[in-house]
């Protein structure tokens, strides 16, 4: 006879009443094995998405160096028109993705000996044909500094099927990271109907003659942007720039700009979005911009920072455009760029941040003239090391090297004090052409260099002038955001349908409605909530993890229990969701929805408004 009045006996009875069978041993072992496999998969994926150190560790600084090299390079005589060309401001444009342009669908590569030449991307527009390349396997030392006159100087070309050659307009840079070179070429535009051609590279630019495989012929096939294989094209989300610039860096001497309410002009415009198998290419344009204080520049040493909606950095590849349209008469020339990134594990919208530099002309209209007798210039293939100093705007510029590149072209290099990022150069006499002054930061000592081509026959003296010496006076924080979408601005929408105040919590329920037009399903991965003061509200129940989709609108229901002791309205409900689209693409997104119970004012403690 059980004695129910005895606590221990009664507990024993309850234990018996609630005794449940154990799981089968085979099931336990099988599940353990499944979990171990899944854990291994998660771990390996996490490793795979961690930015690799090898190439990029070196490539990013190298990109920075080389891009700075280009970005501060302007042709003499065009500065008046385009001296602001590298100034770009936030406000990512809202632009349709459809385009007549062609793009590379699959990377093309070729290997010779240990060297692999890969065309990583291509963009053919009515204005140019741009090829982006990686060359790996180069022996250290095979690629020398651009000054080395023994390096390959033969230009690549494009060979069309009818035998036509398209020549190179600009070489968009080459950079070295141990044994990897990366860069781009800009060729003439492809005639209509030529989406197949061969890239012919007699030798790898910058490599020592005879040290690297030569005579490369790489077939390339382009496809139109927006064709079925590239679906869906998308549009970009416009984000307003910050209202007030923040001044945080001042270099001397400088003219301190006054803070201004002026609108900061747009800088990055997403023109085309291409969905790839595992990510996106954002193709855009950098517009020139200026403020009342002078030109603005984008400092490439920092590059753009891209974080996803959870704050995690998004690794990306940058294909920076070049400025062949810089000579165009139009007030706005194109300076295209491409960001390529994978979307696995990435939550939209992406947050892009950059810093623009406010440049100040420290010299006014002051100029200095540098004169030389042509007979003092170095002979073909010779480098003259010099030690001439000049003063411009209170700064000392040291002319330390002139290189004879052949064919009457000379490279002229100045050591400049830190803080100077640019000056203008113009021919005065005896000079046929002046190349772009290029800022070099590869060396510890900053340099600005440019090429000149001397007239033939060279009159004496030859003379150039230097002017408009620019320093950086301040930085503008630039922020933008981007996410793919096809209906409205959000990928999904949160609806709060019901809120019930219980003793200790609000039971709030609603649904998440996918807005992507061909969304097959929507999964709620996680739900968070934050208070008005940004403190996190503890929701330990992953309520949304296992909801069913509505058959009609595909929405997924959710319920959260919000502990009343923690609430400070309005709160923000934050949902991490995954959309599966009709083309089987997974799009992760963070959707936010502010919420305050009906009839509650945020100005008075809510408890006073609800409780008697």
């Amino acid at each position, binding site marked *: 006879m*059980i004695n*129910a*009045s005895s*606590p221990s006996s*009664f507990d024993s*009875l*309850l*234990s*018996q*009443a*609630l*005794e*449940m*069978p*154990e*799981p*089968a041993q085979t*099931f*336990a072992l099988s*599940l*353990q094995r*499944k*979990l*171990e496999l*899944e*854990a*291994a998969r*998660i*771990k390996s994926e996490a490793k795979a998405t961690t930015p690799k150190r090898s190439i990029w560790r070196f490539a990013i600084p190298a990109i920075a160096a080389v891009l700075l090299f280009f970005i501060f390079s302007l042709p003499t005589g065009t500065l008046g028109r385009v001296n602001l060309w590298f100034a770009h401001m936030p406000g990512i444009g809202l632009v349709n993705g459809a385009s007549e342009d062609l793009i590379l669908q699959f990377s093309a590569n070729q290997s010779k000996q240990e060297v692999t030449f890969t065309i990583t991307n291509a963009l053919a527009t009515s204005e140019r044909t741009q090829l982006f390349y990686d060359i790996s396997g180069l022996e250290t030392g095979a690629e020398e500094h651009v000054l080395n006159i023994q390096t390959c100087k033969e230009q690549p070309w494009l060979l069309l099927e009818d035998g036509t050659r398209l020549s190179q307009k600009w070489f968009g840079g080459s950079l070295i990271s141990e044994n990897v070179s990366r860069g781009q070429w800009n060729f003439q535009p492809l005639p209509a109907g030529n989406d197949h051609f061969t890239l012919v590279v007699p030798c790898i630019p910058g490599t020592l003659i005879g040290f690297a495989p030569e005579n490369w012929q790489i077939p390339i096939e382009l496809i139109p942007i927006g064709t079925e294989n590239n679906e869906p094209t998308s549009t970009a989300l416009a984000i307003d720039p910050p209202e007030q610039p923040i001044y945080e860096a001042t270099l001397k001497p400088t003219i301190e700009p006054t803070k201004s309410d002026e609108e900061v002009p747009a800088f990055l415009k997403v023109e085309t979005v291409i969905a790839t198998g595992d990510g996106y290419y954002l193709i855009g344009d950098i517009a020139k911009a200026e403020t009342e204080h002078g030109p603005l520049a984008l400092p490439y040493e920092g590059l753009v920072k891209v974080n996803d909606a959870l704050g995690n950095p998004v690794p990306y590849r940058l294909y920076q455009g070049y400025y062949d349209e810089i000579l165009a008469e139009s007030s706005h020339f194109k300076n295209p760029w491409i960001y390529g990134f994978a979307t696995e594990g990435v939550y939209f919208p992406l947050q892009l941040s950059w810093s623009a530099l406010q440049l100040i002309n420290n010299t006014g209209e002051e100029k200095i003239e540098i004169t030389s007798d042509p007979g003092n210039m170095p002979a073909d293939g010779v480098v003259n090391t010099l030690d001439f100093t000049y003063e411009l705007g209170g700064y000392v510029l040291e002319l330390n090297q002139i290189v004879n590149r052949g064919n009457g072209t000379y490279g002229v290099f100045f050591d400049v004090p830190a803080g100077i990022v640019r000056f203008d150069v113009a021919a005065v006499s005896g000079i046929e052409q002046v190349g772009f002054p290029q800022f070099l930061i590869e060396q510890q000592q900053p340099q600005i260099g440019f090429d000149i081509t001397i007239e033939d026959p060279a009159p004496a003296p030859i003379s150039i002038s230097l002017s408009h010496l620019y320093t950086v006076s301040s930085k503008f924080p630039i922020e933008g955001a981007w996410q793919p979408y096809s209906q409205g601005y959000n990928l999904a929408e949160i609806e709060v349908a019901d809120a019930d105040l219980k003793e*200790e*919590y609000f039971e709030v329920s609603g649904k998440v409605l996918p807005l992507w037009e061909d969304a097959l399903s929507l999964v709620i*991965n*996680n739900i968070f909530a934050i208070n008005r003061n940004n403190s*996190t509200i*503890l929701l*330990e*129940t*992953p*309520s949304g*993890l*296992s*909801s*069913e989709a509505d058959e009609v609108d595909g929405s997924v229901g959710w319920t959260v*229990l919000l*502990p009343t002791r923690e609430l400070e309205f309005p709160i923000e409900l934050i949902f991490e969701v995954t959309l599966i689209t009709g083309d089987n693409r997974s799009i992760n997104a963070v959707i936010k929805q502010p919420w305050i119970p009906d009839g509650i004012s945020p100005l008075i403690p809510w408890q006073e408004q609800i409780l008697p």
Partner: protein
Amino acid sequence: MADPDTESDKLTVRQAMHDPTLFTPLYQKYLLPVYKYVFSKVFDAPVAEDITSQTFMTALQSLPALRQPERFSSWLFSIAHNKTMDWFRQQKHQVPLEQESEDKLIASDVNPLSDEVIWLRKTISGLDKTDQEILRFRFVANLTFSETAGVMKSTENKVKKRYYHLIEYLRNLMEVDHD
């Protein structure tokens, strides 16, 4: 003073959050209570296995998002609870759950049961769902009051109070019924 078991769990959870291959000890510790808890709701071994698998898989995949490692057990049982509720929704059960549970509960035991145990099972299956859940968490899942409170989004004191009232109620009812 911190519960050494909780502290040990917390450490294991933290390790697994950084390295998912270290999840196995958590699985081994919680398989039995999770399975039993799920079984106590569905009374079907294959279904309980399926839900248990989903529970641990979700826990493994979502572990990095867990903000309070010390509340792992509460979180895990929350997942189990949700997965079970999903299963019920999918089944679109027409039979009232209480009645079906009661029938299955009695039918699930092959060993002869005492009258008191049968009486208790019938009585429990007629209890309020929250009370049933408290008993499951305490007797099937062997959760502490604190852990039970965590799963039920309540406070430890409230759960304790409700539990002791419930036990008292059952005991008195049993005495009355058996007198």
